[in-house]
């Protein structure tokens, strides 16, 4: 590596002696070096004496007080703030309920409750929904919400194919203002999921006259306003003092985006965050040993799914799919993530309608799996598993060894999520895929032959349609339960576990939600002392 820096010039050096100025330069350099060293040492010394200082935001008393700033560590950052166009629960999590609201919303247990609407009625045939609006609802712009804003917002979603929720409102035939405080939504056919959709992205009410840039700011009706978004770092919400309902207790919320689990742990232990959501399972014990943090496993609708490409041999063979499913010991997988999940035998998790315990279907039975493979002539099977590279590898490595035990070799192909979207989701070019299906009530994917599973069962499609056109909750539940039992038996995928992300909550915090926190995080009632 050493270089000969001898100049390739003529033999006669053109260099003149300037020793005095050179000496000055040298002394200067030495002085700078010395100063830097002294400064650095002083800095470190000063540092260690500062460690005893009290952290900002803590108060002597342990009783919750109004006000204060809650700092929440999250792992997944939204790509932008445009609730109309941008996918992902990372956006729902911070903006729905806190900044944007719909006619209806979800309460802490996930039940649908009126929000901007004071109440609503549903016709017996399930085709007409009538919403009465609350008076004096205001946007963050200061303008009052009018019935026209509601009609305009919902109509925008139905008319623009690139808006989130557009497909969910496809049964809507008319949205009309009956009078100044009543909105009527008419359907072409009953849709039991309509209220659920309206409680999510599809139903958010925006101001028609507003021209804020939705990608970088927001103008909703919720208890908080977007104060500052530093991409790749944090999103700050401030309490909206003109809020039309019961105002929030917190002055502000700072969502800090920390992707690395260890980094998140350090932030919590250093007192930089009050709550850390989606704690890496193998780090839970580090929080557990602390008196000032409680760890709660939050219920969720997230299903870690090992999908089989049913459109590709040998996975088009039911026996092979069953064999793979029976070769997998989901209890061991859940143990490998420190118990941060619940076993699941079908795509429907316990928070969603239609849940029944189907864990006995295609349950762990390696001997039977080998037998099935032998009968199918696939005793030496090699398959590729395509995995987005942002997932923890522990459960995946375990999967590889479990399948090896029954004679299946898995080649793990780790790709960026965007590559997964193209290869697996769009082109369906894969054998097995491992991904977290985080959306709630997404059973419809199994009733869609075009979905990347390549799974097609007309009986399931029909039952799902029945569940949509059902007009009572019981009917919805029973149709979906029936459909999910069929799906479980067909084994288009193995539902590895229903993820219950551990959340570390400081003992200074109260009123922090503990259900569905990866998708919604309503903080209107939260306090920090």
């Amino acid at each position, binding site marked *: *590596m*050493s*270089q*000969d*820096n*001898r*100049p390739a*010039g*003529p033999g006669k*050096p*053109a*260099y003149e*002696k300037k*020793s005095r100025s*050179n*000496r000055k*330069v*040298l002394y200067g*350099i030495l002085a700078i*070096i010395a100063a*830097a060293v002294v400064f650095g040492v002083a*800095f*470190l010394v000063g*540092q*260690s004496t500062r*460690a005893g200082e009290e952290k900002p935001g803590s108060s002597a008393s342990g009783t919750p007080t109004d006000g204060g700033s809650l700092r929440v560590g999250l792992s997944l950052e939204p*790509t*932008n703030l445009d609730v109309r*166009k*941008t*996918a*992902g629960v990372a956006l729902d999590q911070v903006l729905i309920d806190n900044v944007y609201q719909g006619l209806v919303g979800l309460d802490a247990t996930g039940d649908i409750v009126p929000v901007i609407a004071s109440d609503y009625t549903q016709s017996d045939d399930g085709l007409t929904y009538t919403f009465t609006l609350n008076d004096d609802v205001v946007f963050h712009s200061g303008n009052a919400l009018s019935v026209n804003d509601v009609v305009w917002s919902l109509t925008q979603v139905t008319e*623009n*194919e*690139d808006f989130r929720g*557009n*497909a969910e409102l496809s049964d809507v035939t008319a949205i009309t203002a009956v009078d100044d405080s009543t909105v009527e939504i008419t359907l072409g056919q009953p849709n039991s999921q309509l209220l659920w959709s309206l409680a999510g992205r599809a139903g958010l009410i925006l101001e028609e006259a507003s021209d804020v*840039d939705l*990608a*970088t700011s927001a103008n909703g009706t919720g208890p908080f306003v977007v104060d500052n978004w*530093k*991409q*790749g*770092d*944090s999103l700050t919400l401030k309490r909206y003092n003109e809020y039309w309902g019961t105002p929030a207790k917190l002055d502000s919320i700072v969502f800090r985006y*920390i992707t*690395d689990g260890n*980094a998140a742990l*350090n932030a919590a232990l*250093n007192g930089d965050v009050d709550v850390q959501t989606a704690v890496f399972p193998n780090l839970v014990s580090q929080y557990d040993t602390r008196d000032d943090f409680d760890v709660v496993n939050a219920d969720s609708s997230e299903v870690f799914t090992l999908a089989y490409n049913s459109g590709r041999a040998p996975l088009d063979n039911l026996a092979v799919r069953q064999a793979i499913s029976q070769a997998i010991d989901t209890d061991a997988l859940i143990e490998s993530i420190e118990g941060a999940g619940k076993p699941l035998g079908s795509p429907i998790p316990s928070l969603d309608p239609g849940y029944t315990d189907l864990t006995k279907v295609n349950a762990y039975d390696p001997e039977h799996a080998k037998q099935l493979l032998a009968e199918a002539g696939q005793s030496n099977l090699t398959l590729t598993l395509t995995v987005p590279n942002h997932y923890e590898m522990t459960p995946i490595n375990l999967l590889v060894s479990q399948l090896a035990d029954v004679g299946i070799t898995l080649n793990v192909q780790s790709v*960026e*999520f*965007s590559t997964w*979207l*193209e290869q697996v989701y*769009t082109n369906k070019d894969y054998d097995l895929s491992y*991904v977290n299906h985080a*959306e709630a009530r*997404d059973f419809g994917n199994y009733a869609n032959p*075009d979905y990347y599973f390549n799974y097609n069962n007309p009986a399931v499609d029909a039952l799902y349609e029945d569940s949509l056109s059902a007009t009572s909750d019981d009917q919805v539940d029973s149709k979906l339960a029936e459909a999910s039992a069929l799906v479980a038996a067909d084994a288009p995928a193995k539902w590895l576990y229903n993820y219950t992300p551990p959340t570390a909550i400081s003992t200074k915090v109260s009123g922090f939600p503990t259900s569905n926190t990866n998708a919604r995080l309503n903080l209107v009632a939260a306090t920090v002392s």
Partner: protein
Amino acid sequence: MTRFLVVRLLNLLLGLVVASAVIFVTLRILPGDVAAVIAGSQASPARVEAIRESLGLNRPLLVQYWDWVAGLFRLDLGNSVVTGTPVAAEITQKMQVTLPLAGLSLLIGGLIAFPLGILAAIWNRRVLGRLITVVSITAAAVPVVWGGLMLIAIFSGWLGVLPSQGFPIDGWSDPARAFRSLLLPALTIGLIEGAVLLRFVRSATLSALGADHVRTAAARGLTKTKALITHGLPVVGLSLVSILGLQVAALVVGAVVVEQLFNLPGIGRMLVVDVGNRDLSKVQSEILVITAIILVVGTLIDIAHRIIDPRQLQAEAEAGRS
């Protein structure tokens, strides 16, 4: 001299044009596309297509390239299709982390490389000099990630004196706090970078020690060290300026790794996130800005060399061109 300047500037411009084309084409080879990322894993193909249409991703690549270049001439780096923010504003914001980080890393690297490199050369035949050389070769081979983890373990975990994660939310409004959060990451790059530089300093000093005018000075009765300090070091400094120019690229690569590791909202982490999102129109502007910085620094160093070092002028004069 004028001609030299014109030629260098034209070279710079040509370099940027070629770089822009290369960056544009290579990014288009990546699988995946931003419309699918925006649409997510519940979207119908029709929705992805609608988004692609609204983002103008269906236009011919040449048209897209021309749009981008035309924007560059207006000093407009465009907007991110994913975040909707102007790219220039975001680069400016992230530079507030990355520039100080790079500067601090270089400072630390220089503080290590210069004194130790010169000592290693002067003590060339002593055990101590050999030891410095061996340690530097080892340190230069340390992967940045591993070095960073070690430093975190020592200063943050064991001693608990320095923050290992993140950057203050209010940026430089508390300079001391911001500086402290950059110290460990800068040490990570600086130590490894310093080890690399040390070997350059050592070999430059060695050749200076052997140079005619230094040997002449020593023959006039100056000690070897004195002769080196008064006659050799200016030449060493000169050759190292060029090396520092080359190290800009290494600093950028170091920043990418270190910003991930230390969770710093800088240019490096932004690049990783943007490539992940396939926000190509943004990535191409970011990479071009970084490339431009490297090329401009290189050009400036060349020009500085011409002005500082009379021997180059002379060599050119003797070779019959000027």
